[in-house]
C-alpha cells in the first residue's frame, strides 16, 4: 500500500512540475497531448479492461464532441454553452452507439463499433454543409476560465492536468464502485451474473456511457488543444490508437492506458523527428509487446519485477550481494 502511495506522490510531483523541467514549449504541448489521450484511453479502458468490450469506433464519439464544440463556437455560441452541449451530444451519440453495438459481444462488438465509427467519419467527411468536409473547422480562441488565458502552453497544460486528475479519480471511483465490480462480473461470467439477477445489458450500457463521457471530455480538450478539427480525427487509425494504447499499456489497470498513451504519443511526436519510418517503429513495438508481454506493459513489468524478487529471495546469498534487485520499475 505504501509503495502505491509513494508512486502516486512521485507521479503527481512529476506531472505538476512538467513545465519547469521539460525543454521548451513544444514538449509542454506534447505532454498536454499525452494527458488528453490518456483521458481518451481511460475511457476506452473502462470498456476493454473492465467490460471486456473492445471498441474500434470511439474516435467517432471523440469526434462528435470535437465537432460540436468547433461548430458552435464558429456559430458564435459561448464557450460554456458549447462545452455543455457538446458533452450532451457526445452522451446522446454514445447512447445510440451502445444501443446498437451492445446487441453482441466479443468480436462482433469490435466489428460493429468499427463500422459505426466509420459511419461517423463518413458523415464528417461528406456532410460538407455542417462539417466543412476535409477543410475542417478552426477554433478561433481558447477559453479563459477565471480570467486566465489558456493560450500559453503551460497554462493549457495545467488546465488539462486538472481535468486529467479529475478523470483518473472518477475512473478510480467508478471501478471501485459496486457498479464497477458488477461490470467486471459481466466481463468474466456474463451468464452467472445474469442468473444472479444482474441486468447484464444495462451494466454494460452504463459502462459505455461512462466511457463516452470520458471520450467526450477528451474530444473537447483536443479541439481546444489543436484549435482545429477535421475528419482525420475520426479515421479508423484514430479509433485504433486508444485501443492500442490500452492494450499495449495493460488493459484493466488505471496506469496502463496512461503509460500506453505516453508511449504512443512520444513515438508519434518525438521519435518521428528522428526516424522517418516511425509508423513502422510503432507497429513493431506493438508486435513486440504481444510477443513478450501479451498482458501489456504495466502488468508485464509488474510480473517481471515479482519474478525477479522471487528469484532473489530464492537465492538469499546472491540477493544480499545483488545491488540492483529491484531495479526494473514499471
Amino acid at each position: 500500500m505504501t509503495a502505491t502511495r509513494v508512486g502516486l506522490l512521485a507521479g503527481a510531483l512529476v506531472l505538476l512540475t512538467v513545465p519547469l523541467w521539460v525543454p521548451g514549449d513544444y514538449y509542454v504541448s506534447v505532454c498536454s497531448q499525452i494527458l488528453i489521450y490518456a483521458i481518451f484511453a481511460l475511457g476506452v479502458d473502462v470498456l476493454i479492461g473492465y467490460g471486456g468490450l473492445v471498441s474500434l469506433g470511439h474516435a467517432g464519439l471523440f469526434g462528435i464532441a470535437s465537432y460540436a464544440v468547433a461548430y458552435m463556437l464558429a456559430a458564435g455560441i459561448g464557450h460554456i454553452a458549447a462545452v455543455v452541449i457538446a458533452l450532451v451530444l457526445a452522451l446522446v451519440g454514445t447512447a445510440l452507439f451502445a444501443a446498437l453495438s451492445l446487441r453482441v459481444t466479443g468480436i462482433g462488438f469490435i466489428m460493429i463499433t468499427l463500422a459505426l465509427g466509420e459511419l461517423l467519419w463518413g458523415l464528417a467527411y461528406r456532410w460538407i454543409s455542417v462539417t466543412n468536409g476535409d477543410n475542417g473547422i478552426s477554433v478561433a480562441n481558447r477559453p479563459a476560465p477565471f480570467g486566465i488565458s489558456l493560450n500559453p502552453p503551460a497554462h493549457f497544460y495545467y488546465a488539462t492536468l486538472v481535468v486529467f486528475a479529475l478523470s483518473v479519480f472518477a475512473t478510480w471511483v467508478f471501478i471501485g464502485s459496486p457498479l464497477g465490480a458488477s461490470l467486471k462480473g459481466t466481463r468474466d461470467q456474463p451468464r452467472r451474473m445474469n442468473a444472479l439477477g444482474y441486468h447484464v445489458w444495462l451494466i454494460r450500457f452504463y459502462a459505455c456511457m461512462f466511457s463516452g463521457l470520458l471520450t467526450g471530455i477528451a474530444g473537447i480538450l483536443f479541439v481546444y488543444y489543436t484549435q482545429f478539427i477535421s475528419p482525420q480525427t475520426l479515421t479508423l487509425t484514430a479509433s485504433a490508437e486508444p485501443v492500442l494504447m490500452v492494450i499495449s499499456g495493460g488493459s484493466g489497470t488505471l496506469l496502463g492506458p496512461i503509460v500506453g498513451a505516453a508511449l504512443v504519443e512520444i513515438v508519434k511526436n518525438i521519435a518521428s523527428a528522428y526516424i522517418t519510418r516511425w509508423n513502422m517503429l510503432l507497429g513493431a513495438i506493438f508486435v513486440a509487446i504481444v510477443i513478450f508481454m501479451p498482458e501489456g506493459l504495466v502488468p508485464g513489468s509488474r510480473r517481471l519485477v515479482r519474478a525477479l524478487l522471487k528469484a532473489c529471495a530464492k537465492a538469499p546469498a546472491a540477493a544480499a550481494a545483488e545491488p540492483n534487485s529491484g531495479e526494473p520499475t514499471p
Partner: protein
Amino acid sequence: MNLWLLLAVNSITFGGLLFLLSAGFSLIFGLMRIPNLTHGSMFMLGAYVGASMVMTFHLPFWIGAVVAALTVAVFGGLIERLLLRRLAGAEQAQVLVTLGISLIVADFCLMVWTGDPISVATPPGLVGGVRFVGVFFPTYRIAIILIACVIGALLWGLLDRTRLGAMIRAGVDDPQMARVVGIRVSRLFTIVFCLGAAIAGFGGVMGAPILSVYPGLDNDMLPLALVVVILGGTGSLLGSLVGSFVIGFIYNYGQALFPELAYFVLFLPMVVVLVLRPQGLFGKQAP
C-alpha cells in the same frame, strides 16, 4: 436511363471486388474467430506487388496477379504461423498484433512505392467495351464480374464438394468437435488464412486498373469488408456474395444520389440488419 444502367454495371463490378475482399475475411473470421484487421493491408499489398510486376517488370497482367496473390498468401501464412498461432482466443492481443502489422505494411508500402498513386493499365485485350442495347459496357469490368463469379464458384466447390471443404465446414461449425474426430484444425487455420490472403491480394490486383493503388487503400477497403461480412453473416460464402453486391449497389447509387450522405447510406443497411438479425443475413450464430 443509361446512367442507371451504367451505375448498375459499376455496382456489380464493385460488388465483385468486394466479394474477393470479403470472402477470405469471412472464412478467416468464421473459422478462426480472428478479427483479421490486416485484410485491407493484404488487398493493398497485393495491389502494389501486382502493379510492380506489371508496370516495372513488364510481366503479363494475369501472371502479375498470380505472383501478387502468392506473395500475399506467403505473407499471410507467416503471420498466422509466427504470430496469430500463439494468440488463440486472446482477442485483445489479436487486435493489437493485426493492427500493428497493418501499420507496418502501410509504412512499408509507403517506403517502397512512395506516396504517389499508381495507376495500372487495363490488361490488353480487355481495353474498350462492348455496345449492347445502346449502352456501353467496359470489357474489363465485365471481366471482373466473370472472374469474381468463377472464384466464387471455385470456392463453393472447394467448400461444398471436397474433403478439405468438409473439414473446414466442420471447423467453422464446431472446432472442438472437429478436433475430437481427428481433423487437424490448426493446419486448416493456416490453409484458410493463406487462401483468404491470396484472394484478397488477387482482388487488389484486379481492382488496381479501376481504383488505382494509393496509400490508404487498406483503410478504405477494410471497413467495406467488415460491413459486407456483418451484413451477410460470418463464415458464409453465400452471405459474403450477397452482402458484396448489396453493398456494391448501395455504394455506387448512394454516391450518385446522396453524395453528402454517401457513407451514412452505406452503413445504414448494416445497422438495420444488426437490429433485426444480429447474426447477419446468412449467418448461423451471432458474431
